């Protein structure tokens, strides 16, 4: 087990190092992408702050609390972007035959597919997010350590659910060799996680909690920190992560079992 972990660690380090070299080589392209990511983050943050020049609260939340929801969304989203970047090239890997090579390598093809690329630009973008989260924490009342622990746990839980979704998208690429937009649909739908789930109408809120659990990934951690999440909902979040990850694994195995190679 330890040996396998070490091997996977080495594979990840190598692929991450290659991804970093590519990003450092393509300086203009990387700079453009980085600037774009910063613009997206800062414009939205400025929007939230500007809104609170005109209103006291939104859905019962003040500026600091709304900022916490927005930043938590960014935290979960960026961690996924950093580590699961390989999924964005899943369809290409299948169509161009790279996936065939993954299958014969002494390494899990899912690992190669999901973790084969690391977006270091998001590591850079994550730094201001972490700084802003620190500033937001400082403006909130001092909570008991258990609240911060629950926040960290539910952020990790959110990342696990995002991972399950990414595995599902990979399986889709292997099964259909198309649906390249699937991951972008996920990104667009994730947009709804920028705001606390309480702003949505009841049916949408239910959909975001039970069907496409964006609320569980992004709103629940912030609510736990604010003391507005009951233990039963926290339990539901953890159970959902376990079930969705297990289902994603089954889906992936089924996809690989049906795979007949689509190229060369």
């Amino acid at each position, binding site marked *: 087990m330890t040996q396998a972990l070490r091997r996977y660690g080495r594979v990840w380090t190598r692929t991450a190092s290659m991804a970093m070299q590519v990003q450092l080589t393509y300086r*203009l*392209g990387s700079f*453009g992408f980085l*600037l774009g990511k910063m613009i*997206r983050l800062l414009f939205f943050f400025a*929007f939230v702050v500007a809104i609170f020049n005109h209103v006291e609260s939104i859905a019962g939340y003040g500026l600091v609390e709304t900022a916490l929801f927005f930043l938590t969304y960014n935290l979960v989203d960026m961690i996924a972007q950093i580590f699961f970047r390989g999924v964005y090239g899943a369809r290409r890997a299948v169509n161009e035959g790279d996936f065939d090579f993954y299958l014969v390598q002494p390494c899990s093809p899912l690992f190669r597919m999901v973790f084969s690329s690391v977006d270091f630009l998001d590591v850079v973008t994550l730094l201001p997010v972490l700084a802003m989260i620190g500033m937001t924490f400082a403006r909130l009342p001092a909570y008991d350590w258990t609240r911060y622990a629950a926040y960290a746990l539910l952020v990790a839980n959110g990342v696990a659910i995002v991972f399950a979704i990414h595995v599902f998208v990979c399986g889709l690429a292997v099964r259909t060799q198309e*649906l390249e*937009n699937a991951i972008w*649909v996920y990104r667009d739908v994730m947009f709804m996680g920028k705001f606390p789930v*309480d702003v949505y109408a009841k049916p949408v809120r239910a959909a975001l909690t039970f069907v496409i659990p964006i609320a569980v990934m992004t709103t629940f951690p912030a609510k736990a920190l604010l003391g507005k999440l009951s233990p039963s909902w926290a339990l539901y979040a953890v159970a959902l992560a376990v079930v969705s990850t297990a289902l994603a694994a089954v889906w992936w195995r089924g996809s690989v079992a049906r795979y007949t190679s689509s190229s060369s």
Partner: protein
Amino acid sequence: MIKYLRAYSISLQETLQRRSTLIMDRVGGLAVVIGLYSFWTALLGDKTEFLGYTRAEMLTYVLLINVLRAFVFTGRGWMLVGEISSGRISSYLVRPISYQGYALSLDLAQKTVHIVSALLEVGILAAVMRGGLFIPRDAATWLLFAAAASLSSLLFFFMEFMVSSLAFWTSESGGPLFCFELFLAFAAGAFFPLDVLPAGLRRALDLTPFPYMVYVPARIFLGKVPHAEAARLIAVEAAWLAAFTAAASSVWRAGLRSYAAEGG
């Protein structure tokens, strides 16, 4: 002219043929609109007015965003980058067509499909959400809106064409294009009305062509701009369009001069 109509027709069929891609595109766009619509509904609460917009006007603005994004921001800049970088552009250059005219035909075909889908979505959303809808009563407002939106669409086409043409000089033009598209979406008012921004920033944006792409057409639709002023704004937009048409053509010609293709 017939060959461009034929290109339009083929592209229209192709877009409709790739139904899963189209549906996924629209689902993604719809999620953004539902997110923004819910956010503004929660923000407005019991208020009858916010930043000079009545409740119906503000919610109509959000729905208009969906329509204008489909009509203005649907483009094929990434395709152009790919065609230049891979050398596929060569096969178009030897054909007896203007590439710009050909690209515009394909662009219009995509816009046709997306605008019809967006109007359907907005109709359904307006019926379901019941937040009130502002519909202009006089024909002049509709005409002015149509003129402003059409110019916006062309303006975006030439702007994107110009930025994508950077691919003639660098294989890293994807970064600048990504950055340009994100900045444009915010600066155009495609996420929120620019009235939210601080006055200084708004004045600075007024000196650029960006607000003419979503914010100005939306304000014309909402009757926030007297007809004479709307006509003046449309004239300014036309001047921007002329400037960017000339700039895009000039960059394209310079790019072609520096372009070299090898192999078959």
